[in-house]
Structure formats: C-alpha cells, structure tokens
C-alpha cells in the first residue's frame, strides 16, 4: 500500500506537450479514476505512473520517494491492460507466475503466492488453461491476477473493461469494486466511461487536453462541477446549457435569455456586470415540462422512449432544429402524453441550476437560501 504524489508532472513528445504540469495526490488505499474524452492524456498519465513512459518534467513520488527514474518493476505497481495482454503460450498459472519467477522467487513460494491470488479471483479451476481457452471475463480476471500476483502496492487499470460486452462489463465492475474492498490497495483506473468512473471511484480526476479539470468525489463532481467542461462531461444525458444575460446583479441575481423568461437565482456574480452573458446549466432530470400556449418557450421535438423513462428533446420556440448543436433534453416519466409539436415551458429546479461565467468557470452559490418561489418559469 502506498500513496502517490505527482507534482508538476509533464510529458512531451518532441515539441508536442501531452501532459501539462499535473499536480495530484492519491491517498493510500484510495480508488482513483482518471476520466476524460479520447486523447485527453489519461492513459499517458497512468503510464507515467507505471513507468512505461518517461516523465519529461516534474516529480513522481510513491510513498514519499522519488521514482521518476525507477523501472516499473521496482515501483511496486501492477498493471492491467486494455487488451489483457496475457502471454498466449503460457497457461494461467505461468502467466501469473512469470513476474514472480523473474523476481527470483523460489518454486514453492511462487506456487503458493499464485494460488493465493487465484483463490481471491476464483481462478483455481483454470490454472492449466491457455488464454485462448478462456472467456473474456476469465481473461480479464487472469489479467488482474497477474497484476496482483507480485503484491504491488498500487494496481493500475488501463480501460480494463472496454473489450467486454455490456452485461459482462457491469459484472466485472462489481467484481473490481469488491476486490478493492478486500485488498484495500491503492488503485488507479483509467476509463472513458463515466458510469464506471462514478460507480467505482473514491475520487475522480477529470482530464481534458492534458490538464486536470477537477478532482473530487463522484458526488462533488456531479453536484458542484467547477466548470462547464466537467458539468457537461459528467452525467448522461448531458447537462443542458442555455446562453443567458445578466439583467441584475448584487443582492439579486437575475438572468434572462432567448426563450427564457426572467429568473432570479441565488448566485454570486462577483465582478460581472449587468449585460454580461453567462451560461445556465441544468441537468435533464432537474427539469419539468409544463404544457403552454403560443407564448411557450419550447416545442417538443423527438421523444425517446426508454422503458423506465423517456427523453424529450426540445426546440426553442421559433428556432429551427440544428444538427450542429445539442438540443435541450428533459428526462421524464414515460406517461407524460407529450408528443412532437406540443408547446411547453421548462420548469427547472432552482436548487439544481448551475451558472457559468464567460470564462466557463462555475459561479459560487450563495449560502443563505433565497426564498424565491420554488418554481419559476423559464
């Protein structure tokens, strides 16, 4: 078990900077998930910790000790690869024993250690099989077992579930969570799947273009994103964003926008002035739809029926649906009776609204609750 500290870590390929000065603390026993869109550098960051890539600048410490120049085997890390990367010509036992043997373990000692690991992962029955004789889930377990066999302080996972089908992915996710509970070792996990991130992580690190956008618990990230990127990235369907204008600041912050009526919100506007444009964010599940007349703000577009719920896509009244932009969407019960062309007003949950300044940073919520009407029409 160990903690990991990154300070000012950079990675360059030639003049191309992939990771820009990352500072991060991973506590002992924590389950940390790196999440972000393709090419954001999350895998690279993991590989820097593993030692598969060299660190261009900054420092990486494990248990307080600088490990920048240490080869992977001396860092006390184990890694699970996306494609499993099991040695095809070795059976399960040899796959798991390979690292231990190379480390110079005695025959009996190696056997014992491998069998212990196998027991935890319920692999005992499979020890004599070759990787090609295993199912996807079994291969995944063997890959985890191989990474665990050398009893590393830190386990690294590089998108370990992305090669599995949906059902198996859910099962393995649960299994990994259980494993973490049991081993209590530090785990760092890379994924682009936010559900994996939300369900597994003690701490999520959201990355974008080689920078950390936000670090926090899943709940923090969901409820208090620090900027528009995190707000849009976490949550599905995506958070709705509306461009609005400040019409009053100071004691009462009031906004107004195209298709959106005056709305008083409990936010600090700081240095912003009346007339500045800000972004209003509200998640699809925090919206209600109310039938309205010709003065309605929105018209119903598509209705997607998902069985236990429905997504209602909206078009601003008088505007034309554009393929370029994400339309506002509302997550509702299935029996609202809404259909294409219906005119509606949006009723957001004021408590759940987020405001983002022109720099895309979230505006602070006012602590003392404003007793505005619980429901307001947009």
């Amino acid at each position, binding site marked *: 078990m160990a903690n990991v500290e990154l300070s000012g870590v*950079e*990675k*360059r*390929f*030639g*003049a*191309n900077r*992939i990771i820009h000065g990352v500072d991060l603390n991973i506590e002992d026993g924590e389950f940390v998930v790196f999440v972000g869109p*393709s*090419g954001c*550098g*999350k*895998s*690279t960051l993991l*590989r820097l910790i593993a*030692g*598969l*890539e*060299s*660190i*261009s*600048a900054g420092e990486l410490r494990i248990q307080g000790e600088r490990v*920048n*120049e*240490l*080869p*992977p085997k001396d860092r006390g890390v184990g890694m699970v690869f*996306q494609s499993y990367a099991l040695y095809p010509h070795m059976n399960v036992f040899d796959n798991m024993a390979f690292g231990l043997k190379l480390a110079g373990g005695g025959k009996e000692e190696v056997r014992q250690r491998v069998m212990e690991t196998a027991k935890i992962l319920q692999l005992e029955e499979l020890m004599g099989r070759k990787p090609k004789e295993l199912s996807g889930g079994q291969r995944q377990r063997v890959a985890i077992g191989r990474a665990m066999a050398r009893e590393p302080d830190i386990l690294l996972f590089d*998108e370990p579930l*992305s090669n599995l089908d949906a059902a198996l992915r859910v099962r393995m996710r649960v299994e990994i969570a259980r494993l973490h509970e049991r081993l209590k070792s530090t785990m760092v996990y890379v994924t*682009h799947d936010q559900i994996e991130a939300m369900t597994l992580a003690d701490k999520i690190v959201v990355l974008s273009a080689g920078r950390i956008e936000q670090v926090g618990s899943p709940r923090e990230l969901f409820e208090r994103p620090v900027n528009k990127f995190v707000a849009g990235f976490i949550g599905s369907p995506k958070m709705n964003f509306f461009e609005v204008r400040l019409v009053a600041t100071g004691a009462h912050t009031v906004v107004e926008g195209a298709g959106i009526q005056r709305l008083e919100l409990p936010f600090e506007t700081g240095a912003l002035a009346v007339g500045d444009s800000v972004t209003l964010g509200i998640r699809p599940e925090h919206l209600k739809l109310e039938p309205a007349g010709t003065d309605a703000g929105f018209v119903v577009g598509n209705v997607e029926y998902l069985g236990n719920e429905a997504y209602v896509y909206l078009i601003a009244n008088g505007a034309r649906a554009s393929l370029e932009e994400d339309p506002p969407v509302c997550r509702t019960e299935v029996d609202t009776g809404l259909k294409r062309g219906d005119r509606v007003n949006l009723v957001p949950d004021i408590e759940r609204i987020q405001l983002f300044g022109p720099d895309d940073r979230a505006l602070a919520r006012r602590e003392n609750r404003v007793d505005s009407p619980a429901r307001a029409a947009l």
Partner: protein
Amino acid sequence: MTEAMSSIESPNRSGGPPRGRATRVRRQRVRAAWLFLSPMLIGLALVAGWPLLRTLWFSFTDAELNDLAAARWIGFENYLLYEDGIWYGVLADPDWWNAVGNTLYFTAVSVSLEVVLGVIVALVLNAKFRGRTLVRAAMLIPWAIPTVVSAQMWAWMLNDQFGILNHALMVLGVLDAPLAWTADANLSMWAVIMVDVWKTTPFVALLVLAALQMLPSDCYEAAEVDGIHPVRVFFRVTLPLITPALLVAVIFRVLDGLRIFDLVYVLTSNSASTMTMSVYARQQLVEFQDVGYGSAASTLLFLVISLIAVIYLYLGRRQLGVSR
C-alpha cells in the same frame, strides 16, 4: 479508445528525441537494441562490407589468386590503360562490352516476359476453381528447383539429338531438322531466357497474386454493375492497383537478372554469345587467376546494380510522395 501515443515506442512526431530524461527502461532498451544488432552487423561486415572494400582495393592492384598478399597498387590500369597506341583494361575489352550487352538483353527480355506471364498466372490463380491449391503448388515447383538442376533438366530437354523439344517440334512439323539450342550462338541466349522465365515466373506470379488478393472487391462489383467489359476492368482498375507490387517484383527480378551466373554457366558454359557480366568477372578471377582485373569487372557490375537500385529507390520515394 486509441490514444495513439500510448506506447513505450511512442513515435516522436517532430522527429527529435524527447527532451526529457529517458527512464532507465528506455535507456536499457536502446542499449539492448545495439547489443542485439551487433552479431548481425559484425556478420554482415565480415561477409559483405569488408569483402566489398577488398574487392574495390584489388581492382586497383595487380593481385593474383595464388598470392593475394603480393598485390601492388597500379591505379586505374585494370579499368583502362593507354599504352603504345593500344587501349587495355576492362573498359577497352570487347568481351566485357559483349557481356554487358548480353546481360542487359537477357535482363530486359526475361523480366518483361516474366512480368507478363506472371500477371497471367496470378490472374488464373486468383480465380476460384477446384484444384487451385494443387495448381499453386505446381507453380512453386520451378521456383524451388535449384538453378543448376533446372539448367540440367532443360539442357536434356533441349539436347540437339535426343531432346524432347526438338522431337516434339519435328513431330508437329515445325522443324525439319533438330536445333542445337544451347550450342548455337543464335539460339543459346533464347535457351537461357526460356529456362529463366520458366524458373522465376512463379515468384512474380506469387507477388502479384498477393497484391490481387488484397484488392477491394467493391471496385469490381461496381464495375460489374456498370457492365464494363472485364478486359477494360483489368486495364483500368486491376493493373493500376497492382502496379506497386509489380514494381517490387520487377526490381527484385532486374537485380537478380543483372547478376545472373549459375544458369548461364551450367547451361551454356563460357560461350561468348551468352556470357554475362558475372560469368566474365568470375572467369577473370578464378579461371585466369587475375584477381585485379576480375575485381575491376566485379566493381563495375556492383556500380551498375547500385545505380539501378538507387534510381529505383529514388523514383519509388518520389512516387510515394506524390500519392500521399
């Protein structure tokens, strides 16, 4: 998800090495790479690099086979020397120029025939028919037979008195009298070409076949839907698409053709009408024991081949550059 850069061997997009300090793993790998390469490099230096340099050196000396150590520097005399109103040296030797002519003639004719025949064979093998594997195996047989053996087999078939070719042609009424295929100065080059084409067409065919099997089938389906004649499809679609593979086959065959030795040596001996550059050089080197002179001829052959290889690589690169 493909983060293309994620590998230890991350390509440096900008060309330069990463400026950060490499990990120990990386340094260890580069050191290991050179260590791993060294046996091969030493091997190549021993059998190719050093001997080539020595050959070059010998070509400027009067070295003789039985006493190479006694070689003395004589400058360009092996290549060209003007003395008492007469030109000496390889470049003034009509036999050498005859060998050059023969080699070029042989290479041009046999490679052209091999390419045409190779494409035909490849088209046949690309069709799906029963017994295709068998025919393909049969095609590989000429390729696998040692050159010396194929020379002997053909020498027997081409035998002027008892050869089956003369027999067959006379039975068919094509010939009135048997021909001395390998001995007749007018025919022997054609005999050599015939055997070479027989032996190496499979190689060309296999390369072309590999290219054919990688062609996208939708082009053909589109052409078929449009009702375009198969011959037109071949020239408009197939041929342009297999040209790169064809060029590879051609360069391999041209370089092989230019250095041909064993077939000519066994089939027609040292006859002047088929003597190639390699045969000429070896005759000087070994039979006449004149290492200096023979090395000069070898060096010239080497220069010709390098020149062609360089031109080819240059053109190949330029073509790649255009298509990119």
